[in-house]
């Protein structure tokens, strides 16, 4: 097994159980990937902590999969470096990186049984006989597929196949687990079930996971931190609630969920700021420096659940932003009610509330929200990003 040692693929203590083994940290330093005239990944900087669950979130073509493939070692960055636990791995081939990968289409070997698939990485590392069987059994039970070892992939359902793929990527105790839209091919209920299970595995194993998805709800449900990618760049990096509650740009605000946007110009008044737009004047939360310097053009982003609907008959509450509107429709969604309202200038707003209101479509209503229930972002962030 010279070969294996040369490759550096030696599991230090193969007998350690998978549980609570921990993971490695990864540092991505100004990584760029250029294809002819197209820059798929543009100067990405990212540090993933040991044991962290980090999601690369972005629309298709944002470079998230390209970045993941470079971390896996399938393609080399045009410039920049990748460090695993402080060691430069930029030039190391994928089969010596010890990084597990789960594909969207499972990529199980069709001519091998589930157990043989899971044994494959162990075979590559020269682990034999009894020990190999034990590790395979442990991995099978980890993904709750005891007794399915002899089945061929084509005799299993999509969800089961993805569990086998997961067990195969975990069994060799990878330093990092990469997942490329692993739940994308599954239906909604199965996907939610596997999300819960993935959370459990992450918690139990303490492994570092980098997860790629374009589904913002999935990213929120799973991740410790999320990196939002756009046109090859990391637009914002933070915890789910940071991204949702205080997005740095309209793009992030929009991508993280439904939002109502008011565009206007900032005006100072008695030490605080007002956003003055077409037919409205709004109180805004504290103003960041960069917005101040961008010529006073800004957008106020308010999440639908931060808005409340006040019927015309009810008294106005002080210290709230208020806009007048007409109720267009109310949709009863079980856990919430979704109201569509139209402001006097024709702008549509979405309000999510609990419980029914007596106002009917066509009635006049007021939409209100507290001053700090909204986020101010620079309006022309797109043009600025393109220039720099």
């Amino acid at each position, binding site marked *: 097994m010279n070969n294996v040692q040369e490759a550096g693929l030696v599991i230090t203590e193969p007998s350690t159980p998978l549980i609570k083994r921990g993971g490695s940290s990864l540092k991505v330093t100004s990584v760029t990937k250029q294809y002819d005239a197209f820059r798929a990944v543009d100067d990405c900087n990212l540090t993933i902590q040991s044991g962290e669950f980090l999601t690369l979130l972005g629309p298709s073509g944002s470079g998230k999969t390209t970045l993941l493939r470079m971390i896996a070692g399938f393609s080399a960055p045009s410039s920049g470096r990748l460090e695993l636990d402080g060691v430069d791995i930029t030039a190391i081939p*994928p089969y010596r990186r010890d990084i597990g990968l789960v*594909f969207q289409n499972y990529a*199980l070997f069709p001519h091998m049984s589930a157990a043989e698939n899971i044994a494959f990485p162990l075979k590559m590392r020269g682990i034999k006989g009894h020990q190999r069987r034990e590790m395979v059994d442990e991995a099978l039970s980890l993904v709750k597929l005891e007794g399915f070892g002899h089945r061929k992939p*084509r005799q299993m359902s999509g969800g089961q196949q993805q569990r086998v793929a997961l067990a195969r*990527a975990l069994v060799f105790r990878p330093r990092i687990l990469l997942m490329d839209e692993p739940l994308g091919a599954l239906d909604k209920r199965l996907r939610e079930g596997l999300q819960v299970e993935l959370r459990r595995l992450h918690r139990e194993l303490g492994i570092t996971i980098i997860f790629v998805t374009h589904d913002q709800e999935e990213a929120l449900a799973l991740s410790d931190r999320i990196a939002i990618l756009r046109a090859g760049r990391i637009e914002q990096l933070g915890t789910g609630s940071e991204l949702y509650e205080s997005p740095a740009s309209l793009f992030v605000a929009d991508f993280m969920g439904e939002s109502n946007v008011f565009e206007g110009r900032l005006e100072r008044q008695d030490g605080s700021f007002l956003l003055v737009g077409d037919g409205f004047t709004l109180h805004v939360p504290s103003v960041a420096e960069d917005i101040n310097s961008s010529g006073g053009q800004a957008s106020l982003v308010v999440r639908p659940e931060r808005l409340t609907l006040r019927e015309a008959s009810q008294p106005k509450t002080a210290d709230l932003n208020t806009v007048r509107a007409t109720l267009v429709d109310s949709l009863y969604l079980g856990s919430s009610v979704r109201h569509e309202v139209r402001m006097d200038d024709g702008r549509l707003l979405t309000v999510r509330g609990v419980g029914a209101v007596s106002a009917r479509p066509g009635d006049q209503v007021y939409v209100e929200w507290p001053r700090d229930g909204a986020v101010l972002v620079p309006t022309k962030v797109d043009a600025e990003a393109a220039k720099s």
Partner: protein
Amino acid sequence: MILRRLVVPAFIGGMVLFLVAPILVVIPMSFTAGNAMDWPPQGFSLRWYSTIFTDPEWTSRIPVSVQVGVGSAFSATMLGTLAALGTTRGRFRGKGLVTALFLAPLVVPVVALGLGVYFTWALGWHIGPIGFGGGLLGSVPGLILAHTVLGLPYPYVTVMTSLRGVDPNLDLAAASLGAPPWRTFFSVTLPLISPGIISGAVFAFLVSWDEVVIATFLSSPRTSTVPVEVYAQVRDSISPAAAAISCVLLLVSVVLIAAVGLLSKKRGQSSTSSKK
């Protein structure tokens, strides 16, 4: 109704007869007890079968045919598999042209190929210090090389077809699991394309097994293949031994084709039954 029930079956029957009759004629003639290929055959005997396995005229040919068939099938399959891997997985300029070249032996007139091969094998072919051929006429290696060219397109096509059904992500998955490229090839790619390799090899063997034109160009009185000898004998004499050996050739072909058919049918069943 009459059309459906009578005319169409009659037409199909006629077609089948037209295709098969020349072959069927050979079989009874090979069992004749007479000394000539007569129709109808006289009596029944296996004497001509015993002739082909005892007469040096034939026994010296059979090993040549087998060697050339197996040798050219082996090298055509090796080269065809590598070519299929390269043109399916690789990315390079002029891929279309390269693909066309590998398929060219299917359409290039065999006589033209035979003539070119004849002169190259006999005289050699030189550009400056680089040379090839010469002294290969009437030799088994010469025949193997020429038949490799003829057989190459078959494994090329069958392996390419198998490869198209293999998910390229499997290579990446294997790499991420710690398999260097050569281990990925032997433990993942090769098992998955083996049906294409086997059927390609069988076809390449059969191409060589009954090939007359190129083999005639390259044969010497001492070294020649069975089909060349059959052709020569039929022109000179009317010995039923030619019919008997033809039946042996036919039997080998039928058995091999049937084996490939069974293999692919079994594969097809196991993959469809499991899809649910």
